[in-house]
Every structure is written in structure tokens, then in C-alpha cells.
């Protein structure tokens, strides 16, 4: 559960960074896309998945 909370929390913060950071600071030219949005979404999905698995395991026990 803590892994899920941490990853989902970081995912949300990265999404916030992706939306709120000025384009110049996002290094869009060098990277080619908004990596904060992409990696934030990956971490949010992973975190929510880990939380769902933890909840299911708790219910089973």
C-alpha cells in the first residue's frame, strides 16, 4: 500500500509539473515531448494498480 501511495502521489505531482511548468523549463526541444506528463501518468497508473492489489490482498486475508 505505501508503494502505491508514494507512486500515485509522485505521479500526480509530475502531472502537476507537466501542466504548470513553463515550456522553456520542460526541456521540450531536447526531449521532444512533455516527459512529466508521460512519466507522471505511468507512475499514477502503477501506483493505483499497487493500491488496488494491496486492497484486494487485505480483503482476502
Amino acid at each position, binding site marked *: 500500500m*505505501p*508503494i502505491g*501511495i*508514494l*507512486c500515485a*502521489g*509522485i505521479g500526480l*505531482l*509530475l502531472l*502537476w*509539473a*507537466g501542466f*504548470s*511548468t513553463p515550456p522553456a*523549463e*520542460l*526541456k521540450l526541444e*531536447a*526531449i521532444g515531448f512533455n*516527459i*512529466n506528463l508521460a*512519466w*507522471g501518468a505511468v*507512475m499514477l497508473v502503477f501506483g493505483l494498480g499497487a493500491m488496488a492489489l494491496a486492497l484486494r490482498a487485505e480483503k482476502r486475508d
Partner: protein
Amino acid sequence: MHLSLIDGSILGLYLVVVLAVGFLASGRTKSGTDFFLAGRSIPAWVCGLAFISANLGAQEVIGMGASGAKYGMSTAHFYWLGAIPAMVFIGIFMMPFYYGSKARSAPEYLRLRFDEKTRGLNALTFALMTIIGSGVSMYAMAKLITVLHVLDAPFAAMHLPQTWIFHAAILASALVVMSYIYAGGLRGAIYNEVIQFFLIVAGFVPLAWLSFKAVGGWHGLTTTLDPSYLHVWKGMAHPETNRLGVDAGSLVMGLGFVLSFGYWTTDFLVVQRAMAADSMGAARRTPLIAAFPKMLFPFLVIVPGLAALALTTGPMTHPGVAGGPAVVSQGIIPVKLDAATGQPMLDSAGKPQLDYDLATPNLLIKSLPTGMLGLGLTALLASFMSGMAGNVTAFNTVWTYDIYQAYIRKTASDAHYLTMGRIATAVGIFLSIGAAYMASQFNNIMDLIQLICAFVNAPVFATFLLGMFWKRATGHGAFWGLLAGTVAAALHHGLTLSVGAVAGIKGGWLGLVHTYPSEMAQNFTTAIWAWSVCFVLTILGSLVTKAHSEESLIGLVYSLTPKVDEPAGAWFKSPVVLGVIVLASTLVLNIIFW
């Protein structure tokens, strides 16, 4: 460089979660077994990830990135040759004796198998090694924060002197690690190590991918760097034809056998994670599960180092193994400056030396935008903290069971030893802070810790090997063999040097009888001497002393222990099947990057 609010929030969230995990674990820490062995109740996959995470100290993430930039892909030997075979060996052959003997620590196994004096010698040297290891992680983290100027702006805003940043970083990391171990013991440390593992992967996957892309992929590396940077085995026939400066024989015997098996199969820091598993099967699977991510870690830590070098040097102009970085630009890796004069340091060919230790941190800062930068820095801090915590939990167990209970207070209640474990945690952290400041006064602390590892881990591997697989080995033979192995390591080190090194911590402090082509070749040979002398003298000493009765060795020695059939289960839970898959995959990686 300054951290934004989002970067700081990511770091803050991580610190809150690791502290919360420690306090959640404290609810299930009621006895000594809970505190020191996590109640032997942890699932295999959690132990496996903690097993690898406890190893991720200062040397791993920063050190392997630096070696990647300096030596190239041959650094992968530290994984594919210097870790995976040993991890498979301990999982299949040695774990039944660690776990099955019910020993609470690796030194305690030596008491059960041999005698008290052998346990005492190992416990004392190991305790010293953990304190230095933890202190070095602490020092490296504080130095990194200072060098990267991460906290300059907040300190300036609070009108605090910039010189306090180093002290604040040491104190803060010490308090965080002490809090979660003091509260949750090994369980708190293990669950946090799993979190730290995921965080390190989450922080380094984008860095590795972006740096690889920035340099133009593998094709870009091949056109930018000398081919000697891109092969693992090619040129290993002679020290002069590869970047490590060692030949294949020393590499396989020194790194692939003695140092690797010495660390991964006897160092209680990692073995303790497997001993916390909830069953014998889980304990055996722990190092094998850890081997899968370990096998892939070169792509996370070495490839960024290579990319940093390629982005620093520009197109290749100097073919040939001896040729270092061809064009030193104002790229990712800065030129190493002399601390006294502030001038660039030059190598023997008159070319500027690069400060490889800053390859990964600088790549992080220059490649990642706000947000991702916070994640990357948090991943770095997580690696340092997991390294510190691994050493501190091993220290508190060995101190309490193998020194305090063995020599100071033999009989006391479980609650007393639990309290002593918590005190040992605080004292261990306090001593680590002392070691961190010692490191700041001592230029070559990393050399010192590698030396201590060669002195301690290399001979003790011979002791464990003979103890587990030769029933005739005796306590007197083991003790004197271990002592002689350590002395042999010191003598070899004291009588040899590597090319260009000055007598002192690098060796040659007793005189000079041989010069090695590289420091690595000298280290490997020191370890080979330590192991060989311990191995031979333990055999000779055992043959002239009285053997232990066979009944007393059941469960401790391979030939006298009935083979316990694993309960029927899925094929992927079989240690042998997992071991074969890991070894075959590692072989394929070696062939691909030959």
C-alpha cells in the same frame, strides 16, 4: 541549480512515506525476532527486492555510473560475473544452511559450525565494516547535496551559512534512517528498501532512456566512443588490451569467484534479508528473485555513465585502448580540479582528468526538467538511505547477538535484547556520523572501504565454503585460517602497488616487490591471496586438529544434512529452475555485449 516547489514536494512525500512505514512496522515489532529478523514472516518477492536494494549504497548508483564512464561496458562484469553466479549459488546451495540452522546472523552460523572464537573474529571485523559502509554512504550523500547546490537557495533564504548544508544533510539522513529502523527494526528497513527499489527504478529508467536517446542510441555510442568502451569480454586476454587493466584469469578468479562470492554469500548485510523470509523456499528464492533486476541494472547505471562520457567528449578522435577521452569539452563530466590549487588535474599523458563521480548527478541535472529532476534526486537519496539502513540493521543484529549477548550479557530477557537492539541502532547511526566526518577528512575513504572488504569478505568466504561443504573442517583450523587469510591480504597489499600509485593507502607500505598494471588487478590479486591462504591453512589446520562429531554438524554441513524436498508448487517457484533461467539469461547478455 535550485529545486522547485514540486521537486521539493516529491522529496518531502518520499520522506513522509518512509517514516510512516517505519512507524507502521513498529506495531508488529514486539520481540527480538521481530526486530532483528522481521519475525521471519516476509514474502519472497519483498525479501528479494530488499536483498538488492540493501546493496544499492553510494558505490552502486554513483560509483557504477562513474565506472561506466571510465571503463565502459566492461563495468557490467561487476553484475554479470561479479554478482549473478554468486546469487544463484547462495540461493540453491547455501541458503538451506543459513535458514535451516536457525542461526540469527552469519557470525552465529560460524559459532554453530565452528566455535566461539571464529564467530567473534568475524563479528568484530564485520561490525567495523558496516559502520564504515554506513558512514561512507552518509558522507557521499551530504557531499553530493553540497556539490549539486541543491539546498543553496533554501539556506540563503533562511540566512543560514552555506557551510551548514553538509552538516544538515548528514544530520537529516541520520535522523530519518534511525527513526524508521528504531521503530520498525528489520521489517521497517525491508519494506522501505522495497519502496526505495521502486523509486530508484522510477528515477533512473527515464534518465537512462533520455541519455541513450540524446547520444543517438547504440549507433551513436559506437560512432562517438572508442570500441574498447563497448565490449565486456573483448580484449580481456591481456591487461594492456582492455580498459580495466586486468586479464581474464584475475577477473574470473578475483572478481567472479573470491570477491563476488565473498560478498554475496557471506556478507550479513544482504544475507539478513533472505533470513527474514517466511519459509525455507522463500529464503532460497530471495537472492534468485533479486538476480533478475540485478542482471538488468547495468542498463540503468552504466549506460547513463557511457552516455555522459559520449556527451562530454564528442566524436572519437583517438582509437586504441590506451586513448582516454579525446576532446574534453564543457560537457556533462567536469574536469577534476586539484583541491589545493584549483587547477585541472592531468594524467600521465598530460591530458585533463575527468571527475567521473559527477557523471550521473550532472547528467540528471542537465537532462531532466523540473518534476522529473525531483524524482531523480529522490531516487539518488533513496539509494544512499537504503545503503545506510542495510548496514545499520546488520550492525544492530551482529552487535546484539554476536558481541553483546556472546561476551557482555549472556542471559537476559528477550525484551532486554530488543532494547539493546534499539540502542545499538542509535549508537550505530552515531558512529556512522563519526565515520562520515572521518571520510570528509580522508581523501581515499572509498579505497579504504574496498580494502577492508577485500581483507574481510575474501578470506571469510573460504571459511564459509569449507564450513558448509567439508565436514572435516574444525574450529581451530577455521579461526587460524581466517586470521592468516586476513594477514596475507595485508601483506600482499603492503608489498605491491599499481602503476603510478604512491605508497600508502594504495599499497606498498611495507616495501615494493611487484607493480600491477592497474589498481583493480592489485585488488583482485589481494583478494585471491587472502582467500587462498585462508582456504589452504584452514584445511591444514583442520587435518591436525580433532574433528567435530558428525551428529553436531547435521543441518550445518551439506553432506550430513538430509535433503528436504520442496513442497510441490509452480515451476517458477523452484530455486533450481529460477537459477537456470538467470544464468542462461546472463550468458545471453554476455554474448550480446561480448
